[in-house]
Every structure is written in C-alpha cells, then in structure tokens.
C-alpha cells in the first residue's frame, strides 16, 4: 500500500506494508543509507532518525506509524558539500574510529542542541546514553558535540 511521509523535507510516497520497519524503507526504497542497521532491537542507536524533530529508532518503528510525519535522516542534516556544524565539528575533532555509530549519534546530538544549545559534558553524555560506540571514541564525540554547540551559538547555520 502507498504510505505518504515527508523525508528530509520532501514529500515521498512509498509502497510498503504498514509493518515494514522504517529503517528498511529508508535504506532500500529511498536509498538513504545513513541510518544504519545495528541490532534491530532499539538498543544501540545506529539507526536513529528524527520524527517530527524527536529521535526515534528506525529499526523497530513500523513505517505505518510515521505516515504523514516528518522524518529526518543524516542526509537531511547536512552533506559533505554543505555540512551541518555537527558534521564539521565531528571532522574537526576526528571524532570517530570505525564510524558506524556516528550518523545515529549526530541525529541524537541534533535533537539535544535543538532543545539545549549549551549542554554540559554530563548533559551530552546523558543524551547519548542510548547510543553505543565500540571503538572508544567517546571523549572525542563528547568534545565534538560541545564544539558544534559553540559553533551554532556563534552563528553557524544549524
């Protein structure tokens, strides 16, 4: 069946069962590969996207439940040609090793900075506790989010 949703600001119609995971629709029908399959269990955060601005695990969310709503993936946050301050800050801090967790983390950080433009290290860490990183890039990731917050406060377009 056809399901209408707005993805990264563009109205899209996808042909999928209501119960299809949002992640599968994004990756395989809309060719948006930035949300990543990690566990399928809402435990690791690799698949995080925004639905109407709030972070949501795409792996277990049925696409039928987001009909008519706004979905934002990392591709909607920024691109290599036109990066978001969060993406810039992650590259400035070289905040990652294998990088598999990073797109989900940036999504979560976007939601955090939207509600709290000047978070402390502890507040950033608490916000990211739904996300796992196996490589141990945590200190850099925490610094990168703080750096992005500063960039945005100083006027970089968020």
């Amino acid at each position, binding site marked *: 069946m056809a399901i209408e949703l707005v993805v990264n600001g563009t109205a899209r119609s996808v042909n999928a*069962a209501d119960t*299809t*995971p949002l992640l*599968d629709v994004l*990756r*395989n029908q809309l*060719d*948006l*590969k*930035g949300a*990543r*399959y*990690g*566990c*399928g*269990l809402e*435990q*690791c955060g*690799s698949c995080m996207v925004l639905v109407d601005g709030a972070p949501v695990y795409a792996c277990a969310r049925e696409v039928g439940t987001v009909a008519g709503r706004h979905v934002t993936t*990392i*591709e909607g946050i*920024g*691109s*290599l040609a036109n*990066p978001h301050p969060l*993406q810039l800050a*992650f*590259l400035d801090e*070289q905040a*990652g*090793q*294998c*990088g*598999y*967790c*990073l*797109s989900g983390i*940036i999504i979560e950080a976007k939601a955090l900075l939207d509600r709290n433009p000047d978070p402390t290290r*502890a507040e*950033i*860490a*608490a916000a*990211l*506790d739904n*996300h*796992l*990183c*196996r*490589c*141990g*890039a*945590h*200190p*850099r*990731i*925490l610094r990168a989010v703080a750096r992005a917050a500063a960039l945005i406060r100083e006027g970089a377009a968020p």
Partner: protein
Amino acid sequence: MSDMLPLSIQNNRRMDRWIRFDPDRTVRLAVGKVELGQGNVTALAQIAAEELDVDLARIAVLSGDTQDAPDEGQTTSSQSIEVSGRSVRLVTAELRARVLDRLARRLNCAPAELSVEDGTFRHADAPTGHDYWNFVQAEDFAAEIAGTATPKPHTAYRVVGKPVPRRDLPAKVAGAAFIHDMVRPDMLHARILRQPNRGAVLAAFDEAPVRHAAGGDFRVVRVGNFVAFVGPDETVVQRAAAAAGPHARWDNARQITPAQQEADWLVGKPTNERVHGDPPMADPPKTVVEATYSRPYIAHAAMGPSCALAEYRGGVLSVWSHTQGPYPLRAALANVLGLPAERIVVRHAHGAGCYGHNGADDAAVDAAVIALQVPDQCIRVLWRREEEFGFEPLGTAMQVTARAALDDAGKPVEWTQEIWSGTHVQRPSTGGNMLTHEALPTPPPDPKPTDPPEAAGGGGTRNAMPLYDFPVRRILHHLVLAPPVRTSALRGLGALPNVFAIECFVDELAERAGVDPVAYRLSMLSDPRARRIIEDVAARSNWARRGPAGSGRGLGLAWARYKNKAAYAAVALELEVDQEVRLKRVWCAADAGLVINPDGGRNQLEGGIIQAASMTLKEQVTMEGEGVTSIDWKTYPILKFSEVPEIDTVIVDAPDQPTLGMGECTMGPTAAAIGNAVAHALGVRIRDMPFTRERIARVLLG
C-alpha cells in the same frame, strides 16, 4: 639482503604492484593492509607523500584488493605501520631515487642537485620541466624492489609526524560509507539459518510457518546443513530468518552448561603443554607467593553485524568483504568452494570496527556459497544481531597464575606465569575452519590445536614474560584443546589477561614488601623508556599524594610494552567504588617511537583504554544449552557515554626511534590499572573480570 626486507616487500617485489602515476596528476598507492577504523590507510598515504615529495592530497590509496593491490596478509597485531609503513617508505624512496638518478644522467648533474616539489623536479632551484607524471618510464619500474634506498632523515619530515585528518571519516558522518550500503545490479538479500555447531544435522525444517511469518517471496538455498533465505526484499528474508529457529530441528546439537562459560572450567581439561623462558632455579628462595587471575570469554561485538557481497558471473567469483585479510580470505574461499584462486577476486570494503577475527570472513563464505547456487546475481548477506553475538569467534577465556619466589627484600628472583587458555587464532589462514564450511556436505577436519609462535608475539603467552629485571622468568602454557565455543583473535590476544595478572600481582607484592607500587616497579626496571612513561603518569596523576587504601576512592597504575617489542604504554586511573565502579580520570603515556599521525595514534590509545575498561568492568559472554546466550546489548552490555572518564594522553616524542605499533598497547595496562585502583579503593583485591556489582558485593561480603 632480501631477508632483511619487510615481509610485505619480500612477497611483492614488483614496484608497479605498489605505485602508479595517473594522468590526473595523482599517485595511486596500493597496499594490502586495510582500514578497520584505525586510520592506518591515512598514515600510509602520509609516508608515501613524504618520501615522494608529493602533496598528500595527490596520494590516492587502494587497499585490500586481490586483483590490484599487493598481498600483505592480515591486518593484525599492530603491524600496519611497522611492516606496511616500512615497506611503503622503502618502495617510494627507491622509486624517487631511481627517477632522480635517471634525470640527473639526462641533465648531466649529480642527483643531489635535484629536488622535488609537489612532484615536480627542480635543478638548482630552477624548474626542469619534468615531473613524475611526464618523466617516469617503464624502466623505473622494471627492476625488482631492492629495498636499499635511503629514506629521508626524520629531521626533514614535513608530512610524517603531523596530525592529519582521516580520509574515510567524512563519508561516515554524511551517509553511505560501508559495505552494508553497497548496492549492485541484480542484488538479492540473504539471511542464514545457522547450524548450531559443527556436526549438528538438520533433521527437519517446517517451511510453511516461516513463509507465513516472512510475508513475501523468497527462496530457500540449502547445501547440506547450510540454509539461507534469499530474495529481493530484505525485510522478508530478515523475517524468515528471525522466525526460522523454532521450526528447525537439529540432531546432534551441543549442550553447554553455564559452568563452561567461566575461565576456571579450562583448568584440568586436555591440553597441549608448552614451556618458555628460563629453566627453574635449582635452589629458589623459600618464600613463594602466588595469585590467580582470570578473564572470561569476550565478544568482539562489532556495532554493525557482519556483511558480505558475492557474485558468480562467467566463472569468476567476486567477493566484497570487511575482512582483515583479502588474500587469506581468497585462499579460504578457494579451499571451501573448490575453485582455483585465480578465479576469485576479493575486495575490501569498510565495515564496523572488528577488533580482531569476527564474523567478517564467515559472512563472505556464506555469500559465496549462495552465489554459486544463484549465479549471475549479487548476493548480499547480512548477519542478524543475535547471529553476530552467537556465532562470531570469541576471545578465549584465560586463567593466569602468577607465582614469585621472593628475596629478603620482597622482590621476585623467579617469576612463573602459568596460563590456561583456548587458542587465540582460528583464522582461515592459520588452520581455522569457516563456519559455513562445517555445515557443508563435506566438512573440513577438526582444526589442529595451534597458537601464534613466540616470534610473532605468542597468543596465550602474549606479554606473559614480565619485563622486570627478574633473574629467572618462565611461562607454563596449557593450551586447552576444546573450549566450549570457537575462539580466535581478539585485540591483543593474551596480552590483556597476562598484563592484568602481572601488573596486579606486582602491586600485591609491593604491598607485601611495604613499598609504594611505583617505587617498587622502578626499583626492578632498568628499561629507560619504560621508566619514563611510568614516571610521567605518576607525576600527572599526583601519585605522591595517593591516600591510604579502603577509602572508596582508588588510584591505580600499570604499564606494559605490547608483545614485549611494540609500543610502551602506562596508564594511571582514578575511580570510585560503592556498589559499582565509576571511572573518574585516566592518564596515559605512550612511547611508540616515530609516530606517523599523532592524532590517529592518540585515538587508538584512548579507544583501547575505553574498550579495555568496558571489558574489565562489564563484559562476559554467557552460555547455556546450544550455545551463547548473551545475544544482544542488554545481555552483553558495554561501557556507555555517561560511564566514560576523561582521558589525558601524552605521546612521548621519539622520532629518531623506529615506529612501534600502538593499536593495542593500552588494553592490558588499563585492565591492570583498574584492578589496582579497585584494590586501593576497597582495600580488597578482585582478581576475576568482569568487576560487576555482583562480584564486588561478593568480595566485600568475604
């Protein structure tokens, strides 16, 4: 001379296997080591840019490709910069020298009068009109690599030693970047129903309820006891595989008891016995003390499950894999499939960090077996989360007893490290079996018991020989033949359990002798590089003001030199313990000789600290029934953001010393520093990992 060459050059003597100048004024460097998230490819590009005197941006790197890149075996054991880096340096220095020699003859000048600026050649500071791209000829590539060129002195370095951004990171913060994201023509998705263990036989499989649960079309590919669900819709095959378990009846499935998940289960089991080091003292001192430490089975636990693509077209099998070794994987595929290696191409693509031998190679064989059954289509295999945790080869449990005969001052004169461990290597290149192979109609024989030789750093014995000035040091290694699960290489192999045992026991001996643990270490350690890093972290952590034990707040310290021949690392660590351990701060110092990319190096040191802390505090693979029961992140928790301490890292400046691999050097010191800090906080020692709330409560209750 050739036996002095790095192995990578010995195995790839043709210059054009490594380097090529492309018409777009770039340099194509081909290497056999692969990017696993550790930044090695960026560092190798730095080395080539330095020796050629070409801007770093012009160096394009192809890594891990059995068609177009050299065979450098596996990307393991902190060897990328030590071995591949040394090779790239010799190759590029030699090519530059050959080209400049030829130009000097043409211009009738001495080679020393020539210089290179971003790939263009100058004579006495004037342009010559020549550059690599218009002057390099086939003859420059004709002779075998001699390996005799003199690379630049480190004092002339402009690119090496500078922090350089990683090349692979931008895509990873923007969108598609991984093998998981590849889309090929005619691609079908596949999921596997795994044979629970070698020898298990699929007696019955009820397809109807699985098809009902899947809700779409797929085909079942079955070869012996290997079963795959294959179709165009990933959601459908995922649902089929998730539903399949209860509808499959396996005969001869193994039965594991929870006791087998513990390290002490290994003791007393059949072993292969090995002894290393000095003979025992004829007349040792009377005072002998010992303590026993352990680590359980540990999962690599990659964030992204194993994935592979394979297609069989026109008699050629093409495989994409996040393997650590494209050439060894090609050999394994040839062996499993009965195809000649010349008809198999393996190409590396980025995966989630692996930290050793995980399911990457097995997934590649899965995809290849299906591709041979379903030719002319691309087969994309993705493991499920529970499959990744349930079937990856595990880091083996280890039990280690440290035993010391003490002199009158309480210092060891004889140290014996007694180790019980499963094997640390069952890679396909070291005699291990691929999972899929064991499910096929003609499974391979049982792997023979093996462990890496001491010259390669050992496996269970890695870092077991203490580097203190003890007159007699020996290792008794009980290589346990049949652990309950498949075990293989996990970052650092036996180094973490062995350093944990040595450095915790040294603290226990210091306490027994009534001497400060840092002073005790320095009193029996003559290596100046080791002393320097210990003194550094002691100073920065304010060790001199360390209070008495038992306050609930602890400061601990430990050090090691990885493999006893790679990078040195010391870690001091502050924590608090009430019901559980909370890490507060970490100070790290490392000496890795010449560091190519200091930022990349720091990232590795800190990542190792956090990963080792996670293992030490939280991690244990659990088992019962048919196999592993810790099959998700709830049952196999790792360290979270709010639990990660601040880390201050110093890399000792030693550019005149050879590069020492640093990817694994902080793991053992971190585990031991936690052990020592917890003992300081509680006044009671915990010798078994992980340091969970339950274990702390048990120890405190006596």
